[in-house]
């Protein structure tokens, strides 16, 4: 396996983990559309920072774009505060406007400068390892230089003037992952409280506003850091997909956080291998995998999955019909009309069921020993009688 692939997998896994962590709180706080808004609205920030630095890999770019992201949040909240615009409409107004400004800035002032708008929006993981963090020899102090050169000469057997420390995105996303992890670990209690009971958090003196903006700052920075690798639209898949999938599986916040990271990494690795084998867009394949895994989990997860729900519905349907049957028999038991009412051939008329349905219910009830059959008549067993009595008392 060529080393480039390992780099891509590492970047993808780091990016997925860094995105999934704040995503959990966005999903729980019903603010996932904010990540969509931020990922589009940072465009003017990136463009302006690019005008200043003339480089796409400058750390200033991340800061400026992160600031634009927070500004988006402020705009949305200001619009909401006027009480003239609802939250969803406020988001839907803010980010296209900022995005438009970004596109106009590019086409008016930067059409001859190299700022590839596709790269910003779509990203391409395959190119991410090409931008490498390199330390130039002149920057290092002589002793360190001697040690490094010595090791490098011994390891690789050749001499170079710059020293390759690995792909740039890996460092950017690694730092963001550590930041996100630290924020969540330090403010775990506060985040949990503000997410599930904002008013209690406020009465206890925690500032929901502060936590909100802290979270949004992290989301902005993570989005910007990830756009280089996966592009601004697919970042949303990484932020929302794994937490939404994990939300189907657990009720426990800690478990949801861990599951989200694991699912994010699994999506990234499987998506990458699929893209590698069939030679298609890596970021696109990871996003597609996110949806496939979501649907699979939705189908097979115990208790809450579609299969479990459907099976429960079917079981309940037959159980209910059997209960109806024993109640019917119970009501007429020992009365003059009992003989006519408990005739198997005419049961469907009394209970207003389809004949096939009725015969199936009788079969199940016989199997469960709720009733026994004597000639053409159904007779309640003790078990069936208890069930009927319980159902009527309830």
């Amino acid at each position: 396996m060529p080393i480039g692939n390992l780099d891509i997998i590492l970047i993808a896994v780091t990016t997925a983990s860094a995105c999934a962590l704040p995503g959990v709180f966005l999903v729980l706080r019903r603010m996932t559309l904010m990540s969509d808004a931020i990922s589009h609205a940072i465009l003017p920030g990136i463009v302006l920072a690019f005008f200043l630095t003339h480089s796409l890999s400058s750390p200033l770019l991340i800061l400026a774009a992160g600031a634009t992201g927070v500004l988006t949040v402020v705009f949305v909240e200001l619009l909401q505060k006027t009480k003239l615009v609802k939250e969803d409409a406020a988001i839907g107004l803010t980010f296209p406007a900022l995005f438009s400004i970004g596109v106009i800035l590019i086409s008016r002032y930067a059409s001859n400068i190299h700022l590839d708008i596709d790269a910003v929006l779509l990203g391409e993981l395959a190119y991410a390892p090409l931008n490498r963090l390199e330390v130039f020899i002149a920057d290092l102090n002589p002793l360190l230089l001697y040690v490094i050169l010595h090791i490098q000469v011994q390891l690789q057997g050749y001499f170079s003037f710059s020293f390759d420390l690995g792909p740039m995105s890996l460092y950017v996303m690694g730092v963001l992952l550590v930041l996100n992890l630290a924020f969540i670990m330090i403010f775990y209690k506060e985040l949990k409280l503000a997410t599930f009971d904002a008013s209690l958090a406020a009465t206890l003196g925690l500032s929901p506003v502060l936590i909100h903006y802290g979270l949004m700052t992290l989301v902005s920075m993570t989005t910007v850091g990830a756009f280089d690798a996966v592009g601004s639209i697919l970042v949303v898949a990484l932020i929302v997909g794994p937490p939404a999938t994990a939300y189907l599986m657990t009720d426990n916040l800690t478990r949801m956080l861990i599951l989200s990271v694991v699912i994010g990494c699994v999506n990234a690795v499987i998506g990458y291998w699929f893209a590698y084998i069939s030679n298609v867009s890596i970021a696109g394949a990871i996003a597609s995998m996110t949806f496939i895994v979501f649907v699979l989990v939705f189908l097979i997860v115990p208790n809450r999955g579609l299969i479990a729900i459907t099976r429960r519905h079917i079981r309940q349907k037959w159980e209910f019909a059997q209960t109806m049957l024993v109640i019917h028999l119970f009501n007429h038991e020992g009365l003059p009309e009992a003989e006519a009412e408990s005739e198997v051939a005419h049961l469907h008329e009394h209970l207003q069921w389809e004949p096939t349905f009725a015969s199936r219910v009788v079969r199940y009830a016989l199997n469960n020993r709720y009733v026994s059959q004597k000639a053409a008549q159904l007779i309640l067993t003790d078990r069936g009688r208890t069930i009927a009595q319980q159902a009527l008392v309830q």
Partner: protein
Amino acid sequence: MDNFLFLTRLDYTLIVVTLGAALLGTVSGALGTYAVLRRQSLLGDAISHAALPGIAIAFLLTGSKTPLILVLGAAVAGWLGALAIISIVRLTRIKYDSALALVLSTFFGFGLVLYSLIQRSGNANQAGLDTFIFGQAATILKRDVITIGILGGIALIIMLILWKELKLLIFDEGFAASLGFPTRLLDILLTSLLVIAIVLGLQAVGAVLMSAMLVAPAVAARQWTNRLNLMVFLAAVFGAFAGVSGTIISSSTTGLPTGPMIILCATLFVGLSIAFAPNRGLIWDSIRQHKNRRSLKIAVGRLMEGPQQESE
């Protein structure tokens, strides 16, 4: 003088593009009203992104770049995306916003996979994708204007025929269901009308900005009235004006792309409406507050003075 120069350049292409943008603004403004009132403003964003794989599949299957076929593919995929969102919300405990964001990004991602497949096979260029994301109003032809006019007209007529039903659906869904209206069917129908408006707009303003074409005119119109019929009408007018003014401004100067200019015009309408609209607007509101405060002061003053005068 300079301002009138563009009038002399009112050539055929510009007229066609302006007409297309105006029609588009009318249709999306009117239909967007329903999305905004139902607090589903971002549904348009999701549908427009989810349309990408449809365009790619339509191209892969037919191998043609005829707009009508691509629009059809976009409509089917966008519609499926909207259906996926509705189903996820109904069947799981995932909330509306997460379902929207999930479908939006993953459908788009699948579209990218298909696009990279098309590119690899070498019978298409990247231009298709760029047009999809950013739109290219300049490429609107007379044929496209006719398509927008016919399909948009059909959508608006359906909206007018089902006026009462849709009105009931957006303001009191439970009541509509209790009266025996098929609310789920109406919901899907309303979503389908939105899908039509969105896929028509993809070529002109692109996927990212299409959501604003639905939201901005409706939000602007909302500030001026409390009545649905007036709001739909105003939103259509604002949408048309945004389309026309955006196109003319962008054609009068180089380096101002049409789609973003239309969106900025629509956003400007929102800003002006929020500031100046009577009754609801910010300025009106602050004047009223000022008046209230003054009349309160006078009233308090009288109360304070009243007993004193008596005692004198």
